């Protein structure tokens, strides 16, 4: 990649895809709730078209980091750039050009409970592109539902009628509704059975390949890390202590990382991965 876009602060054109190296750049982030400091001097860069896994013990602020990047949590200090634009400094309506370039899957799916799955997928389309004809909007909603791996009958069901796994997929369909370039997934496989989790992993990888997505993936699932993540960022001690492929992480010899990947579960996941590769 020859072009250097880190310094270039030009706004993206309406129909232009982001061509820089790092769609998300977090620098010197500090988050605190009252006296409790969650992040201190946290730096992270997400490469274009990679699946970045974010791991860390409970309470290390993985979700808070995601919420900061998508602008739901105003950081106490630091700068966050998404697609080369600062989220922290931008005026709320300036963010519109960024908001339609990302999709977010919240932990519980966060589907609108009074709308059907298909209507849920339509919501962002209505919001950002009111000029689309209702027919096209319906068609888009339908194929997104299927792309997310749901059966077509699911399109007119209400979220309360779906199982947990299907709700996650429906949430993914809504996150993908605007053809985003950047996808945030908050523990997508938590609460799924191993088969469902495996399928979801493969779906994520497949969609990332086909649609050319950059994926920011928070997870506790070691299998997911081994199976689909290009790089893994480890959150501990209020910052990102290491980013890299899993072998690179193991070389750092940080005790938490050692314990995480070489614990019984870590080794089991490693074994599974070795078997499926071989």
């Amino acid at each position, binding site marked *: 990649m020859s072009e250097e876009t880190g310094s270039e602060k030009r706004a993206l*054109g*309406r*129909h*232009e*895809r982001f061509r820089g190296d790092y769609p998300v750049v977090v620098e010197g982030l500090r988050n605190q709730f009252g006296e409790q400091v969650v992040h201190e001097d946290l730096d992270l860069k997400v490469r274009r078209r990679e699946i970045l896994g974010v791991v860390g013990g409970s309470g290390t602020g993985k979700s808070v980091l995601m919420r900061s990047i998508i602008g739901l949590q105003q950081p106490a200090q630091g700068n966050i750039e998404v697609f080369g634009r600062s989220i922290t400094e931008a005026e709320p309506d300036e963010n519109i050009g960024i908001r*339609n370039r990302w999709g977010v899957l919240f932990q519980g799916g966060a589907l609108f*409970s*009074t709308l*059907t*799955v*298909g*209507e849920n*997928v*339509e919501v962002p*389309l209505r919001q*950002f*592109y009111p*000029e*689309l*004809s209702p*027919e*096209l909007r*319906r*068609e*888009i*909603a*339908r*194929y*997104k*539902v*299927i*792309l997310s791996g749901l059966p*077509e*009958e699911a*399109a*007119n069901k*209400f*979220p*309360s009628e779906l199982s947990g796994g299907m709700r996650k997929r429906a949430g993914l369909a809504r996150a993908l509704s*605007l*053809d985003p370039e950047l996808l945030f997934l908050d523990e997508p496989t938590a609460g799924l059975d191993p088969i469902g989790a495996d399928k979801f992993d493969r779906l994520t990888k497949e969609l990332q*390949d*086909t*649609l*050319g997505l950059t994926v920011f993936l928070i997870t506790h699932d070691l299998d997911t890390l081994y199976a689909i993540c290009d790089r893994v960022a480890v959150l501990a001690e209020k910052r990102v202590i290491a980013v890299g492929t899993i072998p690179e992480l193991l070389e750092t010899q940080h005790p938490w990382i050692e314990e995480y990947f070489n614990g019984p579960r870590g080794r089991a996941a490693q074994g599974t991965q070795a078997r499926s590769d071989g």
Partner: protein
Amino acid sequence: MTGGAEFHLEDSEGGSRLVLSGPYLVSTIGEIDHELREIEGGFASVDLSQVSEIDTVGAWMACTLATRHDAEIVGAGERAQRLLKAVESANSEAEIAAPRLPIHRRVPVEIGKKVFNAGYGIASVIGFLGQIIMGFGSLIRHPGRFRVKALVHQLELVGVNALPIIGLMSFLIGIVIAQQGAVQLQQFGAETLTVNLVGRITLRELGVLMTAIMVAGRSGSAFAAQIGTMKLTEEVDAMRTIGISPIEALVIPRILASTFMMVVLGFYASVVAIIGGAVVGDLMLGIPFWTFLARIQEVVPVYDMWVGLIKAPVFGLIVALAGCYHGMQVSGNSEEVGRRTTMAVVSAIFAVIVIDAFFAVFFTEIGWG
């Protein structure tokens, strides 16, 4: 380049081609979607070679055009080909709106549901009452399970916290009754009867009735919303699995608090209303404040106070029952919480007014007129 999506037909050797150019993205396609849908057939291929950017929506558009006109897609780049493959396999005719019956069937179905629900509602209210009585029964057998803390907390929420608002409301009502009553009674030269009017109507009727309406709005709605939200978040189920009866833990403290506090609040409201009347008497009618209060003792029979005090716990019970019942009926989604909360308040106020009418006739008949 203007930057929008464009298309034109081009003749070439193998029949005409539909050439798409510019970015075919979700953000650009809205402008040409309509025209593309109405395009006449007669082209054998859809040419994507001049498309600068494409996403799944663009691919979907190309794909539907090709299928509809039985044409083939040519000139697709590597990314376009991947997207085309993905959306092709995702073709679906499924309906996305919730199923909806035609109107000539929907109306009878809705009426039928209403009738059925009315019947079911009566049955389940009786069932709920039964559960509560059972709950009381088991609490009497196991007094250790009774939640004193929850009761005290509810007494505070329902009673103590309501004192300022109910006081203000009653004071103003007392003023209005005294002032309006005096204007009418002056026509007969009987303005001293204002004391009778204020004393009797507040102790017998308005003190308790207005308080019941206030408590229904403040606490009945809160009961329904709290319990309803706990149902949605499965807290109620969690209680059951631990062996805590939600009736004992949630419903009974609220019912006791509301029943007891209604008596206190109703009496308090009547007293404050009389004070409001006395203030008007002092300022407008020339009846000194303390004389007004002394006259109350002479002209208001003591059974007027009993009428109010007997009605109050019944109203409190109704308000709490409606709130808790509708809260426990919540299931499904967040809209249901709002709907049930409204129903709790409306049905509580309605039932209170109906029962008040029965009480009015009853007490007059037994000679407490």
